[in-house]
């Protein structure tokens, strides 16, 4: 009897947030554990497993389900009582940095609130608000921070320790720190938050000295993500928090570098996400700002600065950057991995810019061009290799057929391949991607295309024969000693072989052939490594394995072009 009641009760209680994973699981627990104590069972029927002993459990059992709907509205800060005594949808206005959020068009999760930036009615009969004012002072990072004055956002690293208006429900209770962290770490399987939080953990493990404020901030971020994951996020978020959420939930991390708190957007994806790109800018078919527009901006900046990229004009983007540098290895200088920083290179590109055919414009990646919505390379030899379209001597690069092309379409910051490069391409197959690499490096470069399968080498030989910079090798990439006499020291190694021990083969080759400071590009197929593990987990493990010998510069997942693939861009130490 009691059991059934509890089940019904939990069902109707969780009705407002039935989509939330934690809420539903906790209600399952409460209904199954019939003989467990009433208070614990009841507490799990309340808000998502959070223990709230202050409310009498018996009161809820006596309630009829019809009362809950009005209770929901009363609980909800987005609803306010009007003159007739009815609750109307009227979300609170929030002011942050002069930008007003919380208009009626804004999507606001129901029943959620933040303490810092929500100026809603604290009086009245809202028990949640009552609890907030009762929050314990001291003992949690939240409380310590809450005593600090709300500062206007500044874009140096000291901002890390200042409150950003984020608020974790778990944290604000005294006992919850450990719980929230544990929760986020245990959710590594397939969840974004797990992936990121483990990242933060490995940062700590690597012995990097971080200030206490940063550490706290990182932990807080983790718990914040775990909170978000369970759909218990805050109702209205500040600007910084918004970008944090966005970045925290991005399926791929973008690696940016930190230099005394100054951040420079240098990738296309950075520029696409940056706020100084107008919202009505033309979008390409992949949802980003049209790369051509981006490249125009980029080249404008480059021509102004010539020798080095300064971050001043991009300062507005800094808060978003700050959240994103979990992945950054900080022991490289911020400019060291940018290719071709010499003024001559830039000026050459900018001078020849007006000579391009219509619809063709350069991208930030040397040798790669925009053509309408697509990318292309200037054909070294006339003619189509794999059935691709050709426009005015430029071959369109199909991201669905080339993993490097997919990486570029996803906005990878750099590929290391530029005119004159010597490239070792492991797993060249029939030469779809190699043909574009051959286009990029031009006559002065070299690409060693290696594959073990005779069938694909047959096609490779025939299609690459007219290209003077392609050198085929038929050998197993797992045994570099077999072809060591055929390959010189190279600038770039690209690997696209679907093997279980792909990463170790990659490292072996990088060790053997890659020059110090050279780029290693690894296209990883997680399903080949282990089909039973989640791709996220494999990417995480790969990252850890790569970082022993390499510095990871960028990382992109290749969906929707390739499922469960990721492209790692590394630099040899």
């Amino acid at each position: 009897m009691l059991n059934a009641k509890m089940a019904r009760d939990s069902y109707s209680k969780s009705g407002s947030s039935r989509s939330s994973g934690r809420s539903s699981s906790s209600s399952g627990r409460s209904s199954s554990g019939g003989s467990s104590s009433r208070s614990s069972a009841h507490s799990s029927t309340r808000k998502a497993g959070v223990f709230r002993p202050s409310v009498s459990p018996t009161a809820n059992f006596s309630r009829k389900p019809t009362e809950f709907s009005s209770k929901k509205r009363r609980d909800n800060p987005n609803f306010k009582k009007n003159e007739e005594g009815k609750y109307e949808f009227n979300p609170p206005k929030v002011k942050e940095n002069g930008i007003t959020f919380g208009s009626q068009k804004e999507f606001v999760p129901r029943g959620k609130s933040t303490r810092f930036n929500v100026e809603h009615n604290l009086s009245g009969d809202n028990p949640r608000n009552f609890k907030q004012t009762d929050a314990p002072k001291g003992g949690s990072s939240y409380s310590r921070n809450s005593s600090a004055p709300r500062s206007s956002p500044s874009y140096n690293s000291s901002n890390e320790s200042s409150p950003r208006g984020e608020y974790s429900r778990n944290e604000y209770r005294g006992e919850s720190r450990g719980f929230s962290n544990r929760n986020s770490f245990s959710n590594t399987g397939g969840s974004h938050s797990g992936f990121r939080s483990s990242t933060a953990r490995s940062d700590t493990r690597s012995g990097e000295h971080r200030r206490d404020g940063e550490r706290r901030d990182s932990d807080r971020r983790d718990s914040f993500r775990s909170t978000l994951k369970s759909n218990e996020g805050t109702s209205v978020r500040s600007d910084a928090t918004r970008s944090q959420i966005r970045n925290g939930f991005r399926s791929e991390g973008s690696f940016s570098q930190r230099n005394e708190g100054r951040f420079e957007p240098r990738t296309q994806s950075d520029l696409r996400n940056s706020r100084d790109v107008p919202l009505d800018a033309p979008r390409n078919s992949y949802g980003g700002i049209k790369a051509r527009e981006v490249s125009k901006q980029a080249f404008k900046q480059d021509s102004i600065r010539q020798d080095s990229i300064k971050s001043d004009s991009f300062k507005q983007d800094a808060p978003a950057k700050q959240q994103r540098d979990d992945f950054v290895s900080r022991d490289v200088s911020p400019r060291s991995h940018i290719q071709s920083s010499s003024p001559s290179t830039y000026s050459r590109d900018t001078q020849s810019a007006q000579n391009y055919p219509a619809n063709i414009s350069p991208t930030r990646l040397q040798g790669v061009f925009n053509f309408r919505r697509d990318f292309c390379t200037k054909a070294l030899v006339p003619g189509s290799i794999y059935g691709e379209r050709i426009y005015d001597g430029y071959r369109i690069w199909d991201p669905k057929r080339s993993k490097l092309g997919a990486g570029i379409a996803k906005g990878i910051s750099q590929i290391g391949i530029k005119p004159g490069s010597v490239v070792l391409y492991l797993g060249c197959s029939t030469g779809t991607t190699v043909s574009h690499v051959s286009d990029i490096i031009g006559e002065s470069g070299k690409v060693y295309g290696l594959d073990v399968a005779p069938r694909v080498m047959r096609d490779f030989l025939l299609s690459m024969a007219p290209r003077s910079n392609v050198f085929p090798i038929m050998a197993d990439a797992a045994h570099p000693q077999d072809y060591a006499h055929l390959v010189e020291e190279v600038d770039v190694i690209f690997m696209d072989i679907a093997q279980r021990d792909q990463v170790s083969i990659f490292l072996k080759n990088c060790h053997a052939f890659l020059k110090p400071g050279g780029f290693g590009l690894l296209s990883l197929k997680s399903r080949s490594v282990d089909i039973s593990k989640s791709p996220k987990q494999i990417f995480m493990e790969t990252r850890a394995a790569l970082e022993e010998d390499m510095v990871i510069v960028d990382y992109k997942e290749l969906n929707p072009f390739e499922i469960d693939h990721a492209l790692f861009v590394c630099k040899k130490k």
Partner: protein
Amino acid sequence: MKVAITVNSKEHYFADGRKVDTAPSQIDVALGSTSVTAASRDVLLQPSEVHAIVTQITQNTPKDVYYAAVSSQIRSSVTWDTLVMQATKSIDEADVSINLLSKRLREWFEWHNPEFSRSFSSHEEFAIAVIAGVYPQTTMGADVSEADLSAIFALATQVGSLSTYKDQTREYIDKILRVHAPNFTEVAGSAVGAKLLTSAGSFRRLAMLPASTIQLLGAEKALFRHLKTGSKSPKYGLIYQHNFVQRSRKKGTTARSLANILTVCIRKDYFTQNPILETQFVEGLLTKLR
């Protein structure tokens, strides 16, 4: 094509300058017309010097040498099993084509003589009977002209010749398999044997496979679904088509034992210089199964 660089009798380096454990006794870097040979037992080369030699060779090597080397590698990679696998695949595709063309043939011919078409269940027999042209003329079908009939016969001839081609290719596969893998073919039969070979990818690979993998060759989809989602594991793959498994009541057990026997046989064939059929040996393996 292989190269190993020996610095002295104890220290060996690869081209990249790394030490290796085993290597022959001299520097022998040969690539097409360019070659450097230096007996260097007593000369100590620094890793950078080794690298310099290789870099010099590779940079001076014309592209054609790489192409020639890979061409010869491709040429030498073609073995009997490569060709047998192509033949096996062509039989499968001929089956598909015969089915497709026969359905059209029946559809076409049945306007002329539906009763005759319905009296054959096998497509191929029907096509051959049409070519023979002996069929009862009492029919509900329409009279058609000679020109129309000859067009129908042309299609029937194609189906018939495809059928003949299939038989010939089966014989060819059987002949080749019995030369290179007599014991394996004796147990598996040429049809299942050729399919297993095709699924494994090469004779060498098939010989290296464990019995459990041979049992599940051809059931990859079910296997990976099992590994991924924890659904039921497959009990047999292509081996299911074998007569023993077909007749058995305990198909899973039979498939497992048969895979064990096949593994023994294929290894015997692969690692023997000139394999011959050893009937006693095969029968000894098969007694338990029978």
